[in-house]
Every structure is written in C-alpha cells, then in structure tokens.
C-alpha cells in the first residue's frame, strides 16, 4: 500500500457553495485541459423526510491532486485553498486537521494520492 504524505485537505462542506473556483484554480496552476483537474466539484441533492431536501457541494480531490507540493515548498497555500470563495478548504498535517474536524460537523478530510 502506498504511504500517505501525511498532509491533506479538510473541507467544510457546510460552507462550500459550489462556485468551482477550486477546480479552475487547480487547472490553471497545473495547466490541465478542460475535463481534468486536481479537484472536481460534485453537486448532491439529499432528499429528506417530509418533502425536504438539502443541497450540498463537495470538492473531491482526484488522482491529479499533488497537494500543491511546488507551492507549499515555497510556503504558499495550495491554489484551491487560496482561491476558495467560501474559504472552506484547509491544508495541513492530517493529525492537525483531524483535530479541527472535531470542532464542527459537516466536514470531510481528504488524504489525496499526492
């Protein structure tokens, strides 16, 4: 099994608005053609009891996510993190992010292939 880089992305999907900035920011940074990016935004409409729904967007890191190694080496934030319109992506050590995750619900922690 490949080893984890020890770093990851913490997404607060309560606040992700589905603005697609992360997806395009990554494509710009690494010059991916349309259809490819380190992160892809997914829309989920959850159906709930009593004819109610909840609308969620979730940015999903793909096999192309390298956790912005060239940027983080220079002390810069990953491009998706920097541009996220809702400021709802956090980059960091998985242990630190896991602690953050305990503070509020509706979060996911990704450990991409990197």
């Amino acid at each position, binding site marked *: 099994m490949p080893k984890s880089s020890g770093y990851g992305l913490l997404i607060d999907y309560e606040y992700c608005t589905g*603005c697609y900035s992360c997806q395009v920011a990554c494509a710009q940074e690494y010059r991916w053609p349309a259809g490819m990016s380190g992160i892809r935004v997914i829309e989920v409409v959850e159906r709930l009891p009593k004819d109610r*729904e909840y*609308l969620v967007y979730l940015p999903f890191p793909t096999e192309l996510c390298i956790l912005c190694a060239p940027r983080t080496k220079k002390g810069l934030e990953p491009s998706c993190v*920097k541009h996220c319109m809702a400021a709802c992506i956090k980059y960091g050590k998985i242990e630190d992010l896991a602690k953050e995750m305990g503070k509020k619900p509706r979060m996911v922690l990704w450990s991409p292939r990197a």
Partner: protein
Amino acid sequence: MTENLEVVRTTTWSAGPGCHGGCGVLAYIKDGKLVKIEGDPEHPWNQGRLCARCLAMTQYVTHTERLTHPLKRIGQRGEGKWQQISWDEAFDLIEKKLGKIRDEFGPESVIFSMGTGRDIGPWICLLAYAYGSPNVMFALSGIACYSPRIAAVDTVQGDYCVLDASQWLPARYEDPRYKVPECIIVWGYNIPASCPDNVFGHWIIDLMKRGTKIIAIDPRLTWFASRAEVWLRLRPGTDGALAMGFLNVIINEGLYDREFVEKWTNSSHLVRSDTGKLLRESDLAKDGSPDNFVAWDTKRGAPVVWDSSNVEYRLSDVQPALEGSYEVNLFDGTRIPVKTVWSVFCEEVNRYPVERVSEITWVPKDDIIKAARLYARSKPASIHWGVPIDMTPAITPTVQAIAALWCITGNLDVPGGNVISRFAFDAVAYALPGAKGVIKLKSKEADKKRIGASRYGPLNRFIWRAHTDLALEQIFTEEPYPIKGMWIQTCNPVAGIGLDPKKWVEAIKKLDFVVAVDLFMTPTTQLADVVLPAATFLEKDGIRSWWVPLQSINKAISVGECKPDVEINFELAKRFDPDFRWKDIHELFDEIIKPSGMTFKELQEKGWAFPPEGHPSAPYHRFEKGLLRPDRKPGFQTPSGKVELYSSIREEWGLEPVAHYEEPPFTPISQPELYKKYPLILSTGRRSPAYFHSEHRNIPWLREIEPDPLVEIHPDTAESLHIGDGEWVWVENWMGRCKLKAKVTPIVPRWMVMATHGWWFPEKPAQEPHLFGVMESNVNQLIPMGFTGKDGLGAPIKHLLCRLYKVSGSEGTENA
C-alpha cells in the same frame, strides 16, 4: 515560473469575468503574456479569493477566436463575410457613415445600445453625447436590471443602500465600528460567484460563519435556502405581496422602530381624504409653497407646516400626530378631512393579512410570520436582494415595500444594516440614478428627443436612458422619428439581453448602419457592418468608484490590436465633437476622480482608497449627521427631506404613492385560460458559476462545468411528462419554443421549471440562418417585449407560463 515574471496588481471589471468587478488581482506576466492570475491577498474586497470565471482568464485573453482586428462586412448582412481593416480605416468609415445619418436625420436617429458588464456606462455615454444622441439604451425590456431598483429606492429615501458587510472599512469584520448582522434576508439571490449590487456575494458566507442567520426568499432550493433559518418558497413575481405581509406582521405586532418612523419618515404628514393627495402649504394659504407639507400639531390642536427646504417645522416644539383623522380649512374656506401618512400607509398594509399573503405567494402563513419576526427582532438586520426584484412590472411598489422594511425597523445606515451606498468620494463618471456625473449631454434641448423620456417619470428624474421597449417599436414605426443606426457595445440582444430575439434580428437588419464592439463574434455581431475588437480588463487602464473602494484598473498586457472600450469611444468622440475637452483618457480619469483629491496616477500607485469617516460617501448614521443633503442639514435627499412612506414623487407622476402588490401579467392567477394550456410556471435566468449571461460558452474550463443549456424540472413533474434526466425537451408557450436539456432535480418546485438563459453555441456556424444556433435554445423567445410597469420599468422575465415535451428523435440529434 520565476524568471522574467512581472506581477501587475489590478482590479477586475468585466470583459473577462464579465461581472461588475471589484476584486483585487495579481496578473503574472511573462514576455508580455498572461501566464497566471491570482486573487490579491492584500485586497480588502476579496482577500485573495477569486471566482472560476476570473481564474479562467488565461483561456480567455489569447483564445484563438478572440477578435483582434477591426472587421468590415463584405457580404450581405449576416452572411459572415468579413475583411480585416485598420483602426484608421474603421474610424474613418464610422465617422463618415454616422456623420451622414446625423446630417440627414439628426443625432437622435442613432441608438447607443449597451448591456450589462464592462465598465461601459460612462464610455458609451461619452460617445453618444459627443455625437449628440440622447438615446443611450440598456437593451433589456423595462431596463429591468438594477437601475429600476436604484430609482425606486431613491424615490423612497433619496439614496440607494446595500447590505453592510463592512466593505467601507479597510479592516473589514475586525473593525470595532462594525456589527455583524444577526440576520440577513437573502431575497431572490443565489450565491454561485455572482456579485450583484457591487457586493462580493461570498461576504455573506463570511458573515454566516460569524453567526448571521439567513432568511431565504426563493422559489428554488438554493444554497442559501438549504441553510436558512426560514426559507420562503414563494411563487415568482409575488415578492411585493410578501413584503406587504412582512410589514403587516411587523406593524401589527409593534415590532417597528417608532422613533425612526416619527422622526425620519414623512409618517406625520397629512393626506387629503378628498383627493388622496398630500396636503401642501399651498392648499392652506394662497401664497404657500407647494413644496411644503403639513402635519397635525397635537400640542396646538392645529395644522403646522413642514418646511421642506429647511427640513423642519415652521414652529418650534411641535408634537406631530403619527396617527389619526383631522379636519383642516383650505385657503378658500373649504373644510376637508385629512389623515396622517402613517394611517394611510397602515390601511394599505392592513389589506395584506398573512392569510391573504399566503394565498397569493403560496408560502405557508406561519413561515411568513416567523420570518417577519426574526427579521424585525434581529438588531442589526440586513436585506440583500437580486435582480428578480427588477424583473417584474410592479418593481417600484415592490421596492417601496421592501425599503419600508429596512427603514421602519431602524436598519438604515447603521452598522450591519442596509448602508447608504454612494460612489466612493462622490467620484461619478456619468449620470446614474441619484448622481450627476462628469460626462453629460450638452444641452437639455438635446435630451428632449430621448425615447420615452416624456412618457415615463423615472426616465426624467433618475434614469437617463432611452426606453427599450419603445425604442424597439420605433425602429419599425419610425414614429416620431426614424432610427437609422445602432452602436452596440457590451451587448448581445440576439442571444442574451433581448427578449423576443427574432424581433431584435429584424430590427437590427432594418437599420442603415450598425457597429458592434465585442471580444468575440456573437450572434449579434454577425448582423453588424463593422465589428471592433475590445479589450479585457487586463488590457486597459480604468477607474472604479462603484461603491467602495475607489480603485484603479491598471493595464497589464496587450492583445493583438484590441482596444479598450474607453479608448475606442474617446477616439470617435473626439471626431464627432469639435468642443471635446479632454486631451487623453488619463485627463478624463483625473477629472472624474478629482473629488478624491488624487490624480489617476496617484490612485494607481495606491491601488485603492477608502473615503474617510465623515465623508458623505462613508457610513454610518449620515442622515443624522447632515451628510446626505447638499445643504448639510440632517435628513434625506427626497422632496420632503424625509423617508417617504407616501411618495410625493410617485404622486407627481400620477401613480400610486404607497407600496402595494400587483399581480404580474402572465401567471396562473392573471391568465387562468392560458394556464390550462401552459400548466407550468416558467422562470428564467438562474445564475451559473461558469457564465456571465451570454458569455463564456467558448471557454473550455467553464463550458465543462455546464456544457448544455438546462431546464430544471422536479422529478414528479418529469415523471408525469415521461421526461428523463438529460433528455432534450421543448419548452414552449404562445410566443415560441426552445430546446433545453432536462435536469431532473427537486431543487425546483413541482409547479415551476427554471430555464437557463443566454445560450448560443460558439462552436456552431456563424452565418445566417445559424447565427451560432442561437434560436435553438434561447429561452428569451418565450418572453415578450412591451409588458413593462406603469412607470415604464420592470418586465415579466421570471414568471411566465409554459409546457414541456420531449424532443422527438430526429429533432434532438443536433444538440444531443
């Protein structure tokens, strides 16, 4: 990427992201080419963030289809045959052709047509006014985007206002003067990277993280609706009734700010019960002024004059009555009954008990009550609205009701409320509602021929545009004078802003000479005689003072022979106007931003600047401090100096002075017969993070986000029509039909479909009859022109009727 890398700090404002801008960006330039764009982390507006459309700029600026040279038509109109010409040839040709029209028919015979986006307002006026034409036209029916709202708010309170998300304070949320709103009503606005009202949409997310609760008003389950404390799924077009319902709850439960109502509104002015008009000093005394109003002084038991120019009562120690009926003697001795404005206002509000409002809006009664209470009890609370408010014929009475909400709850110009928004430093480029600009038409005389100006009040007081619907008619009727030419800039009436687009095609073809200025060929540019290549925001110098901060746009690159709109128009304006007084565009910018005390160069060095506290364009509590009126007296810039719950301006126009609801023209209620045939409410124009209206379909990173024109339809409705997700369907009504792809989703209610707008296919053939396939999927074919409100503003764009059926096999292949 570090070698030879130059970083230019600048400000977004359209062409590119398409929006009205405000974001600070860093453009990374290598060998004169844009290699990357990032949000400027130091900029207080976006704090490093950036939307998908702006992040896609590298695919935009050097796109292979970008227009990079002026073009002249060599075939028939619409045949798609062009010849490249030089700028000199283009300017000479335009000067000659437009000059000839001016000589033969007068300058008003050329319409200068604009859309939204790009910093076009001032520069199109610059050219039109230098040429001598008053006919600057925003090409949407009823001018139904933003300026009606501004005009309506100005009617009530003399100045516009927006959600206060601390944007006037450089330290933003951390500034001690700021208060986070306890609640925001998000009224007909959805988040995906749309920044209307010159408010960065995601500020609301920042505030939610700091505790703000949301009341969402939208027929669709938007992102906000999903996360709202209360979500009101109203029937589109019934916003006015809902606002009246809120007022009903707030007033009858005593949840309003009585002190504000008494002190700052015209609530105690008297209304004549015989005529229904405001009682004026001239009614009481022969030599009295018609500009002064009258209140009932309970202390003296007699009427007392409100002196509008001094913004005070004639007598001291007045105790004006807020409520009640009285009798006064007119100067001719007649005794008439009068009532206070507040009594009249409350009578109107009482026509809207929540039960009735629930019946009109289809929103459950309890939710209306819950929302009204939450808004009124939250201190501060704010309202942020979107363009659906403009997109209904009764826009003005709707806005009167909503503006009354923030006024009577004491949320006007307070931290975290609705804050009065003026151009930063009062640096105004051209006349917009409520502001006089540097760029003006030469004489009042020249303005007399402006289309619709004599017919509609707001067009003579607030909105200095031609009336779009009348202008389109006039092209065909040639009455009262013929239209011979059109200058089209930032404007795509065939695909985007034009309702009934086939009529626009016919109209444009009827003209003698048409110039289009754009960045790419569009269905509209195909119909022009000359097409000029415009620049993106990265290729120009410019200024932005709308609303705050004052910012410079700084040129970072050049592309081909593209020119910024301002330079194109400046060059031609010089040719048309012998008295043209500016040497170059920097001199023009200097004059516009002069009130800031800076030159354009100085502003460029700073990047942005905030008006200091105490300046009329900086908050808060300006009406108390005497910062709003030219005479520096406390109060507002309205005829009475007060917030007018009973509008003296509307009275002057012969229109209902008080907020109320009017049923729109094409709804299940107003058209029960049509509704039988077309049993679904058709709403249009929901926003997409990928597109700004009709733009960006050719940008690969954006097109992949939303590749096809969609119509959203509820799963149950889809099932009953045997329509599956992703199938092509016809959306049809009495006007026509268009082909859209079904997105089956419970985001929309069962009784409504939402059709996306602005669709054409840059990948399809340009020449007629194709025009990039624009008539296949342009939903505006289902929306008529000519149904504007009584004051000429607003149009029924978000509430029509339609039916849906599946596209049969052979018809579907072209798009599928």
